[in-house]
C-alpha cells in the first residue's frame, strides 16, 4: 500500500497523532477514562497502522523483535519494582503511601509508574501478537 500517495501522506500525519493520543490517554487515566491498558493498545495500533501501510519489514525495522520482547518483560519488572519499592520503604507490597513524603503524593507517584509499566507491557504484547500472526507465511512450521 505504500504506492498509494494519499494513504502514505495521511498515515504519516496520523501516526504521530495516534501516539500522542496514546500518551494523552495514559496520563489522564487518573481523572478520566484511560490508563495503561488503553494507552498501550492505542500505541500498538499506531505501529500496526504503520505496518499495514508500509509493510511488516519496515515496521520490524522501526520496532525490532528484540525490543518488543524486552518491552513485555520490562513492563512487568517495572510494575513489580514499584511493588518492591513500597516494600523496601517500609510498607507492604504495592504500598503507595510510603513512596513520597506526603501519602497523597505517594499515591500519585505509585499510580503513575504502575501505569507506565502496564503501558509498556501491553504495547509490547499487542505488537508481539501482531508480529506473530502477520509474520507467518503459508507453510510456516513451529
Amino acid at each position, binding site marked *: 500500500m505504500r504506492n498509494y500517495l494519499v494513504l502514505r501522506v495521511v498515515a504519516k500525519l496520523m501516526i504521530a497523532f495516534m501516539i500522542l493520543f496514546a500518551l494523552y490517554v495514559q496520563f489522564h487515566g487518573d481523572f478520566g477514562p484511560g490508563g495503561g491498558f488503553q494507552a498501550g493498545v492505542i500505541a500498538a495500533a499506531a505501529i500496526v497502522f504503520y505496518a499495514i501501510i508500509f509493510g511488516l519489514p519496515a515496521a520490524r525495522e522501526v520496532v525490532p523483535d528484540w525490543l518488543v520482547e524486552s518491552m513485555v518483560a*520490562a513492563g512487568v519488572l517495572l510494575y513489580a519494582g514499584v511493588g518492591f519499592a513500597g516494600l523496601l520503604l517500609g510498607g*507492604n507490597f504495592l504500598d503507595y503511601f510510603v513512596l513520597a513524603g506526603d501519602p497523597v503524593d505517594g499515591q500519585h507517584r505509585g499510580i503513575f509508574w504502575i501505569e507506565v509499566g502496564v503501558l509498556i507491557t501491553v504495547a509490547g504484547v499487542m505488537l508481539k501478537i501482531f508480529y506473530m500472526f502477520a509474520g507467518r507465511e503459508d507453510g510456516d512450521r513451529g
Partner: protein
Amino acid sequence: MISLHYPILNVVVPLIAAPLMVLARHGGFAWLLATVVSGSSLAVSVALFAEVADGSVISYAIGSWAPPWGIEYRIDSVNGFLLVLVSLIASVVAVYSRESVAAEVAPEQHYLFYTMYVLCLAGLLGIAATGDGFNLFVFLEISSLSSYVLIALGRDRRALMASYQYLIMGTIGATFIVIGVGLLFLMTGTLNLADMAARLPGISETRPILAALAFLTVGICLKLALFPLHLWLPNAYAYAPSAVTAFLAATATKVSLYVLLRFYYSVFGESVIFAALPMGAILLALSLAAVFIASTVAIFQHDVKRLFAYSSVAQIGYITLGVSFDSLTGLTAAIVHLFNHALTKGALFMLLGGVALRLGAVRFQDIGGIARVMPLTSFGIVLAGLSLIGVPGTVGFVSKWYLVLAALEAGAWWLAVLIVLGSLLAVIYVWRFVEAAYFREPSAAVARLREPPLSMLATSWLMVAACVYFGLDTSLTIGGAAQAAAGLLGGGR
C-alpha cells in the same frame, strides 16, 4: 522483617522470575531460576504453614489498604497446607524437568517453557493465598492460561487440540466463577471473602445468592474435573509433556478443590450448603459416578498416560466423596486424599515420563517387557499403583481408610462397600500395567533401553518414597489435614 511479607513474596517471586527468563532467553538459566524459585517458594510455604498450623490466621494487606477495602492475603491452616503441597510438587518437578523437557520440547522454546512453569506456579500459589474473590479469578486465569501453553508444547500434534479444548472448557469455567463472584459482589457489596461471609447470613436464601452458588459450583467443578465436567482432562494429561502432566495432575485440580472448599465452608457456610440445600447428595452422586465410570473407562485405554488420567478423574471423585459427607472425618479424608493423590499421581506421571523419554511413547503395545530393562521405574510404577488401589503401607490406604470411617460414621455401610469396590476396579487397571511390564517378552526396541537419567529417576523415586513414608507415618499428613478440616468447619456457620 522480611518474614512479615512472606504471604506476598511467595507469589511475587515466581511472578518476577518469568520476565527475567524472557529477558535472558537462555534455557539453562531459565531452568536454574525455575528450580531456585520453586525451592524458595517451598521454604516460604513451610515457614508460613509452621506459623498457622496451630489455627491462627495471617492477614496481609496489599498496598497497606486495610481489608475489606484492599486486597487481603489470608493464610490459615487450609491454605498453608495447600501452599506447602503445591510448592513441594513444583520443586520436585522442576528438578525432574531438566532432562524431560530437553527431550520433549524444542531447544529454542525451553526458556518459554520455564517462563510458563513459574507463571503457573505463581498463579496456583496466588489462588491458595488470596482472600479476595476477584483476585482469586485473576490468579486462576494466570495459572490456567499458562497451563494451556504448557500443554500445547507437547510433542504429539494432538496436544494442540487437547490444549484448545482445555482452553474452551477452562475459560467457560473461569467465566462462570467470575459470574458467581460478581453476583456475590452485587448482593454483599464486597469482594473480600471474609467480609462476604459476614454479610451473607441475612440474604443467603435470596435468588441471586443461590444463582451465585450454582455458577460457582459449576465453574469450579469444570476446573476440578468432577464428572461429568472432566472431558478436558484425559487428552490434556495424555498429550502434554511429561513434566507438565506430573505438575498439573498433582496441583491444578487440588487447588480448584481448595477453592470449592473455601467458598462452601468459609463464604456460604455449612448451614446453607449442606443443611438447606442438597449439595451433599449431589456431590455424593457425582463422586460415585466419577469413581465407577472413570475407573471403568480407564481399564479399556490403549495409552498408559491416558489410563492414569482417567484414574485421576476417579480419584478426584474420592476427594469430593469425602467432602459430601460434611463431617470432620469426611473433610479430613478429602484433604488428606488431596495430598496423597498429589504425591501418588506426581510420582506416577514422573515415572511414566521416564519411560516416555527412553521409549518415545507409552502405549500398552509398546511397553511390553519393560520391567526387564527398567526395573526401578517399573517397580516405582507398581508401588504408586498400589497406592492408587489403597494397599496398606501406602498413602492411598490412609485416605481410603478415612473415607470408609466417614461413611460408617454417617451410617452408610453400603457406601463403604462401594469405596472398596472402586478400589477393586483400580486393581484391574494397575494389573494391566503389571501384566504388560512384567509378563510379556520385551521387543527389540524395548530390549535396548536403560533406566531414565538419574535426575528424573531420583526425583520420581523421592515421590514414591514419600508415598510409602507418609503411608506408614501419618502424623504430618493427618495432623495437617485434621487441622485444616477443623479450621474449615470451625467457621461454625
